[in-house]
């Protein structure tokens, strides 16, 4: 090979290597780095297996805002059975084509992996079977109804599934007194999870549906759709879509007409959604019109205050920590890590295949169980030989036989810069929407 040709070949290889690094290398390198660090300290690894790049790059930091505060509190309490917990970010990229190899690399490369936070709506069906096969518990934030009756014994879901969320949104519109509503959902897997039950719930509650739109996400314009929506003159819009789509749609709605009340879901409490939509239509208008229907987690509880204090103290690993304190997904991830740690203590082993069976033992209500709201309290009670029920920052987590846990729902809105509960939705109100 001539010298010049070699230079070209080297240049090409560099380009390919850089591409590989940019597409998938970050996850493997971060995993390997963390794994070696873990091995040297004997730390137990919890993988934050979420998206850190691309359009949904905020999902990773969102989960990290739950994991690192839990890590801080668990390690401050002496760790689990004498071993420290280490949260490890791994970029799953949100697409099965990338997340499956990333999951395989994670499983193969980390001998200290004891648990996973991950499996979003776009890749849960692809990666959950891999962690199931590896016998690693995975606490997922997917809302997909395909997991409502999942037989995967290592799959756990703290937050309510999308179907329940959609019914709650319809019930929320009714409870707020609106009779003419439109539904507006993105055509991605995450938004489509709650769309069918939101629509069927609205019909069951005899609300007039003025429009029912499914948006192709990420378009430069939605003016034609907006004009159709305006023609129906809805009092409220029941909606879930990604930040970019929502921002473009509502900005055009404010240009062509007026923004009615928005009935949203926990996605609207995510900082990225509020930044995008608030930037597009004005933060004051968004705060005024937005009613988020979310799982009820009273912000005054000891568990929630413990979480927020640890979150603020984790600013080294979680930049601008305060932005996540009302983010339900972050709060649920915090509880997930605490539950895994307590289950290990209860099982007297960190072996995932063993402690997985103890997860329900530290969360289920039972006669004589001591209710605890933090890892330290739970660890102390277990050391005293007591049974415990961990009631965390999202409230009681009672898993059914398919490892799903649902909470009650509340309608929240921003008042004086903070999310506050406007009203609670009763089980009867949600059942009316669900047809139960």
């Amino acid at each position, binding site marked *: 090979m001539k010298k010049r040709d070699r230079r*070209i070949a080297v240049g090409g290889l560099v380009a390919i290597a850089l591409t590989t690094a940019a597409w998938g290398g970050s996850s493997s390198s971060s995993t390997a780095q963390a794994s070696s660090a873990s091995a040297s300290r004997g730390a137990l690894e919890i993988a934050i297996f979420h998206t850190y790049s691309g359009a949904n790059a905020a999902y990773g930091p969102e989960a990290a805002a739950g994991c690192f505060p839990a890590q801080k509190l668990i390690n401050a309490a002496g760790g689990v059975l004498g071993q420290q917990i280490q949260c490890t970010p791994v970029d799953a990229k949100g697409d099965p084509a990338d997340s499956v190899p990333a999951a395989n690399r994670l499983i193969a490369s980390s001998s200290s992996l004891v648990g996973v936070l991950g499996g979003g709506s776009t890749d849960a069906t692809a990666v959950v079977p891999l962690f199931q096969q590896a016998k690693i518990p995975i606490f997922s934030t997917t809302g997909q109804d395909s997991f409502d009756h999942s037989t995967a014994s290592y799959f756990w879901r703290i937050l309510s599934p999308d179907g329940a969320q959609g019914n709650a949104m319809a019930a929320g519109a009714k409870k707020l007194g609106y009779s003419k509503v439109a539904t507006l959902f993105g055509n991605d897997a995450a938004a489509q999870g709650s769309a069918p039950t939101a629509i069927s719930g609205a019909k069951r509650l005899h609300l007039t549906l003025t429009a029912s739109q499914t948006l*192709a996400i990420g378009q*430069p314009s*939605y*003016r034609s759709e907006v004009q159709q929506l305006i023609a129906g003159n809805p009092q409220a819009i029941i909606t879930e879509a990604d930040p*970019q789509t929502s921002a*473009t749609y509502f900005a055009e709605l404010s240009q062509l007409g007026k923004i009615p009340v928005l009935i949203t879901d926990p996605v609207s409490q995510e900082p*990225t959604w509020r930044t995008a939509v608030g930037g*597009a239509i004005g933060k004051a208008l968004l705060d005024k019109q937005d009613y988020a229907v979310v799982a009820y987690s009273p912000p005054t509880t000891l568990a929630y205050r413990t979480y927020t204090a640890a979150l603020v103290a984790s600013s080294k690993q979680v930049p601008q920590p305060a932005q996540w304190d009302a983010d339900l997904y972050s709060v649920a991830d915090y509880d997930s890590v605490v539950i895994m740690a307590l289950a290990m203590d209860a099982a007297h082993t960190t072996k995932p295949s063993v402690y997985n069976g103890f997860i329900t033992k530290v969360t289920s209500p039972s006669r004589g169980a001591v209710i605890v709201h933090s890892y330290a309290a739970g660890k102390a009670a277990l050391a005293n030989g007591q049974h415990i029920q961990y009631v965390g920052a999202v409230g009681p987590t009672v898993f059914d036989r398919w490892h799903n846990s649902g909470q009650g729902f509340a309608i929240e809105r921003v008042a004086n810069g903070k999310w506050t509960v406007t009203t609670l939705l009763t089980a009867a109100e949600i059942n009316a929407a669900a047809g139960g």
Partner: protein
Amino acid sequence: MEVFISAVGFGVVTASLLAISAVGFTLQFSVTNVLNLAFGSVMTGSGFVAYGLNSSGMNIWLAMIIAALCGGVISVLMNTLLYGPFIRHGMTLFGMVIVTISTAVISDHIIEAAVGPSFFSYNAPAGKALHIADLLLTRQDLTIIGIAALVTLVTQLTLQRTRLGKSMRGLSVNASLARACGIPTRRVVTLAWFGSGVMAGLGGVALFLETSTFSATTGSDFLIVVIAAAVVGGIGSARGAVLGALVVGIVTEVGAAYWDPELKDVLAFAVLIVVLLVRPQGLFSQLSTERVVVG
């Protein structure tokens, strides 16, 4: 009828967004034969330059002009530092596609690392829409339509009436012959990259104004529609790019008004397939079929 006219009006706005970028994309491709898939990254980079200036108090339209010039510089640097060495060493058309994909991925990650995984908005409210006949357009829409018209006109006049334009056209037909005829190919190529980058910058800021929010990947996400418009029009033709943009823009908006909005992309790309079935070279392509990359 009112709905149809409105939808056409909305389509013209979308087409204007597409046209600014598609003309830039196709201009550079016609001269250099490099299918620059990092064009979207130049749009994003320029958009963030405008964001920085706008955040420090500069009027968005002035910021747009400076960002466009920055886009031109970024584009020239991209060619000089990255693509040029590969082209000079005989990289094939397909090889260059891989290099530009690599550049796009790396650039987007660098931008994301710099700005973070958040969303941004310009401080430039579009205001309420004005009723013009049955059309509903904001002042911002009208400005963007004007910019698109100006960009197209200037590009067309440059290509048809100036020495530089003739050189570009000569290069696009036969680079070796153009070089033999004394055309300073490197300078012409550099100017083509600069012009393309300027239009990427204008297109990026215009897109981000219309979408009202943007992130580190918004430009690249939009690129596929830009390429679709350029391909429908006939890649290498500025007139074709505008016509392609009008077809794609109007079809998507009218489709959304009368059909399922979820399928607006499907409709646009179905039109693309039909056009290519009838005219594989696109509506206005003037390019030679046997071409090599030019650096």
